């Protein structure tokens, strides 16, 4: 496994490694304990999502986009729907915007809680890991009640949302917010006072404001360097046009700063959820969306928990997109990774990698891997046959509808 030249050791971290929750390969050249060079190899999760979208109609593409990421699925569909609505010229009802906002902020909460747990685990602080993941369950249960699923909620649709929030559910959301706020304040205090935590996080993985510009970093990584790169503020969309987000920045430029930013963002998310629930207007939750888009292209962005999420759709007037490009936030944060790793210690590598909250699936998007595992997948035809059966049992016969060959 090890290669030696010039008395330097190359340590492979990944594709399978306990500190990586998803496959990615980091070849770390060590000089003693110091990282001299880091080569990043990603792409293990390339699933061909963009190609798949090009051969599906918009409604089907939405379901694929929902599955770009397991954590920030709502951010991806929000962005995709927003792009679609912009091109189609749809006016989304206000209530739908608010529901999107509530689900989006809940998602931010659970994503950041997940991150805090993973980060704590990387530095061997398993107690904090267990605590945050316990608290994350509260949010996941809420999301499961809203959307029926713990991760892919399927709340968004073109022209609005698919599920309304009953007043009972909103009361529960507020209750969970109260419970979580108390715990989050404790974590914030912990992050500010726990000596070993600070000793491990401070001063490592430095990315200065200039580096942020050079490597085009987004999200908490940029905000920890004092750059206010929050799409909800620089380009307010949906509910954020009505309710302003408090900017959260930090000037530590390191992993510690990213931790503080995320913890504060969770408290801000709770404030926003409370506001949204209080201000949510009555009315319809969706408008009818067309099946086809007019010719055109659109570049849409939203703020996912990990940063700015950019979707590009180009339409040729058909019911299928001509090109879909998903630029997930993690993809933007990879560029500065080697720079962040070099010069620090091997012990810091896992936490520096974790500090951008990497989501490999998001980055790679897009074809199942060559060789193996194919027979475990259900192919498109059998899913279609299954759905035809389902509809037939309800008295509708969709089998005459032709499926587009690709």
């Amino acid at each position, binding site marked *: *496994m*090890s290669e030696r030249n010039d008395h330097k*050791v*190359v*340590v*492979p971290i990944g594709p399978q*490694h*306990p*500190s990586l929750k998803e496959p990615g390969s980091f070849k770390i050249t*060590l000089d003693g*304990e110091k990282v001299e060079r880091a080569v990043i190899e990603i792409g293990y999760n390339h699933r061909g999502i963009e190609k798949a979208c090009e051969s599906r109609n918009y409604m089907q593409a939405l379901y694929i986009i929902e599955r770009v990421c397991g954590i920030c699925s709502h951010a991806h569909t929000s962005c995709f729907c927003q792009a679609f609505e912009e091109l189609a010229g749809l006016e989304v009802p206000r209530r739908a915007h608010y529901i999107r906002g509530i689900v989006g902020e809940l998602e931010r909460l659970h994503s950041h809680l997940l991150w805090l747990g993973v980060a*704590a*685990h*990387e*530095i*061997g*602080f*398993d*107690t*904090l890991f*267990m*605590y945050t993941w*316990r608290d994350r369950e509260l949010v996941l249960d809420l999301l499961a009640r809203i959307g029926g699923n713990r991760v892919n909620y399927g709340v968004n649709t073109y022209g609005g949302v698919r599920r309304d929030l009953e007043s009972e559910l909103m009361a529960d959301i507020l209750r969970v917010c109260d419970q979580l706020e108390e715990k989050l304040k404790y974590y914030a205090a912990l992050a500010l006072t*726990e000596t*070993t*935590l600070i*000793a*491990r996080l401070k001063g490592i993985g430095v990315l200065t404001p200039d580096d942020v510009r050079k490597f085009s970093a987004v999200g908490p990584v940029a905000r920890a360097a004092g750059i206010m790169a929050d799409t909800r503020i620089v380009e307010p969309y949906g509910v954020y046009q009505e309710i302003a987000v408090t900017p959260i920045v930090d000037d530590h430029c390191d992993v510690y700063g990213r931790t503080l930013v995320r913890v504060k963002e969770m408290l801000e998310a709770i404030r926003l959820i409370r506001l949204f629930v209080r201000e949510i207007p009555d009315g319809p939750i969706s408008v009818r969306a067309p099946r086809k888009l007019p010719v055109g292209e659109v570049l849409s962005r939203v703020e996912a928990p990990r940063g700015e999420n950019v979707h590009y759709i180009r339409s040729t007037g058909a019911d299928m997109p001509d090109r879909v490009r998903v630029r997930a936030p993690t993809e933007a944060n990879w560029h500065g990774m080697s720079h962040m790793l070099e010069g620090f*210690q*091997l*012990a*810091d*590598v*896992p936490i520096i990698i974790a500090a951008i909250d990497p989501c490999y699936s998001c980055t790679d998007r897009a074809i199942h891997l060559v060789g193996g595992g194919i027979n475990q997948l259900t192919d498109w035809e059998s899913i279609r046959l299954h759905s035809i059966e389902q509809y037939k049992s309800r008295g509708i016969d969709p089998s005459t509808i032709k499926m587009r060959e690709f």
Partner: protein
Amino acid sequence: MLLSILKVLVFPGLLFLSVYSLVLEFVDRKVYARMQNRKGPPWYQPMADMLKLVGKKVIVPSNAQKFVFSALPTVSLAAVCAAFLCTPVWGETAITAYSGDLVAVLYLLTIPTLCHFLAGYNSHEVYSTIGAFRTLTQMFAYEVPLFMAFLSPAILAGTWSISGIAAFYHAHPLYALINLPAFFVSLLTSQSKLERTPFDAPEAETEIVGGALVEYSGRYLAFFRATAIAELAAVASVLAALFLPFFTGIAWVDFALYLVKTLVIVLMMVLLRATMARIRIDQTLRFFWSILTPIAMAQLILNLFLRGGLGL
């Protein structure tokens, strides 16, 4: 003669050690889990883990020296068992009490660490090599404060025998309070010796995948695991004898007291493990050399002064 052999083999010797170390591991894991808001394992889990490991296939790396690779687990377990026999469990005196056994115990407890290093170095694998060197680096960090902290009560008592030290503090219980700083230092250094969080950089799972023992499997790994938990029992016993020496003179009450004392020490170690993050190896070095070593040194000088100057 037969009685002595039985004492060594059964109680309070090796059989007791194996049972009690499993109990301590269970307490360690259960309390750790409860502190983390988890349910924790059932009481037989350490035993089940051990049996399962023993039954697993052993894989020896092709470029490792086979004899050394297979001998190291046994050597380290034997050293820990020998150390445990020198600590008082039943009554005030250990089975094998002799003058100067404290120093012997400290050296015996160093052997597992060296075995870890050799095991990692002999595996010829990048993670295990890094783990091995971290083990050795960490040993250089904690060994000096550990020795000074463990020897402080001995100097005050004027004897180098663990049983003798226990007897001295039994006679003068209040003197034990003088050793509180040394107790604090020895708790932290023991935590480091046992490679438990926050000093578990040598086996940091998320960085170097378990460190020195990454190539070990099956019964060899089981032996190393047994070493680790027996070491916990042995260190807790030595700490109890040196720093918490309260005896009644009635053998079974002393045994109960021994159980309470070791459990208290293990609980303190679990608390340390549960409330801190793993610190880096360079931070470990700095912490031990710039904070713990001066404290231990001050304690040592104080005890020398008390012993000699005040003629205790």
